[in-house]
């Protein structure tokens, strides 16, 4: 009789440990995925000065845009900003970069410039990687949220004080894909 009780106890312990570790694993992969977004954002910050340098000599009338994006980048790389601030800053950067890319349209010489073309490819690549990192983050968060809300892991999550996390939403303006045809026309 006692052995049966011990057996049941062991099984319960294993299940509890499993849930506990599983939840921690899921929380860590969410954090890990967020860190990856950060890495790619840094890559983008590194490209901004290059972009500004490449287009500066051509763009006389858009100085404002260039100064704006430089300032935003400086703020974003200054450190000690919260993740929420980072996201807002990046949405701003997205908008300004979009503006620059539209302005490029009126400078055929610039568009034909090989350096600029390379840069544009790098920017495209970073954007695509960023989108991949966001999707990975969202997948990790969904996994985590499922564990937090579904039975029986929700009981464990409640005790560990784990709460649902927010998905990385992309603001409406951003969701317009860059029109490659006009960029390379």
């Amino acid at each position, binding site marked *: 009789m006692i052995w049966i009780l011990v057996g049941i106890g062991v099984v319960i312990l294993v299940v509890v440990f499993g849930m506990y570790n599983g939840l921690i694993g899921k929380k860590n992969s969410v954090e890990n*995925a967020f860190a*990856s977004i950060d890495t790619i954002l840094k890559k983008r910050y590194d490209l901004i000065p290059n972009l500004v340098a490449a287009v500066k000599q051509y763009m006389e009338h858009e100085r404002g845009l260039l100064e704006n994006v430089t300032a935003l980048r400086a703020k974003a790389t200054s450190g000690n900003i919260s993740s929420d601030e980072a996201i807002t800053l990046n949405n701003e950067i997205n908008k300004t970069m979009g503006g620059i890319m539209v302005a490029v349209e009126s400078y055929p010489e610039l568009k034909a410039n090989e350096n600029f073309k*390379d840069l*544009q*490819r*790098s920017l*495209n*690549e970073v954007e*695509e*990687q960023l*989108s*991949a*990192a966001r*999707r*990975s983050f*969202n*997948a*990790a968060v*969904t*996994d985590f949220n499922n564990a937090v809300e579904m039975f029986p892991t929700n009981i464990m999550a409640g005790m560990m004080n784990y709460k649902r996390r927010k998905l990385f939403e992309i603001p409406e303006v951003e969701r317009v894909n860059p029109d*490659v045809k006009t*960029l*390379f026309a």
Partner: protein
Amino acid sequence: MKTIEDFQNYYENDLRPSLEILDGERKSSLRNAGLAGTLITFVILGVVGWMLTSGLPPTYMLFAAVGGGVLAFGAFVLFTKDFKSNFKNTIIRQVIAYVSEDLSYAPTGMISRSEFQSSTLFKNRIDRYKGEDLVDGKVGKTKIRFSELHAEYKTTTTDSKGHRHTTWHTIFKGLFFVADFNKHFQGRTVVLPDSAEKFLGRLGKKLQEWNVSRDDLVKMEDVEFEKEFVVYGTDQIEARYILSPALMRRILEFKRKMKVPVHIGFVNANLYMAMNIKKNMFEPRILRTILDFDLVREYLEDVMLAVGIVEEMNLNTRIWTKE
């Protein structure tokens, strides 16, 4: 863009003369094979007759009949071999040249075994590896290669009497396609037909997570795609970088159009695609005339199917750092 009318003209002006010569060859090789067959039949009948009079057991006659059948088949293969290879070297070569001058064709060539294995699409041990009809070249900016392949493994069992039986099992048979992918990547991502999730739902997904022979499971957000395929990769972000939402849609549509299982791998800077196509592609027919536009058109369609993957997967869009 070439139309079917263009191809009809090409057929009339460029292919038809070669086809006429080849059809003559086909007839004469068929005649020779027929003669050899008749000869073999008479010989076997003679042998069987002699066996009957000399009172040998009936099993011997069975052996003689089977031997005759094998001989006749061998004669058929032997007499039609030259015709087949001539046909491939002229007609198939011309059809491929019609599709693009940048493509070369090797009737007996194939995607190498090591390359097939490096795709990691199929993990079984390979004991027999065959292939033919290798096409190699460039479509736009994308380098491509494809061939028919048949990879098998064998199992040997020994029955109670000590007889050994070898059974061959197909790992993959169909069209194997390789293209230079348009984005840079380092790791490995594979997209496999999803059987577990289709039948078992969430439980199936759980089981896929524990698949030790594969890399980490990558759960995609496209629900329809997830139902048809399962993705494993060495890097979660890289897998999503490669499989953008647009590419997932393209793969899904391609799969639905093909109606056969499709395995896709992204390894060593390449896209590998294995399609379980049942028919033997680019083969001439022997028993009926080859002076038939629809027959040649089928060859064209088969080439276009493979070459069209570049377009279907959008591989000529080179807007990332990879040229």
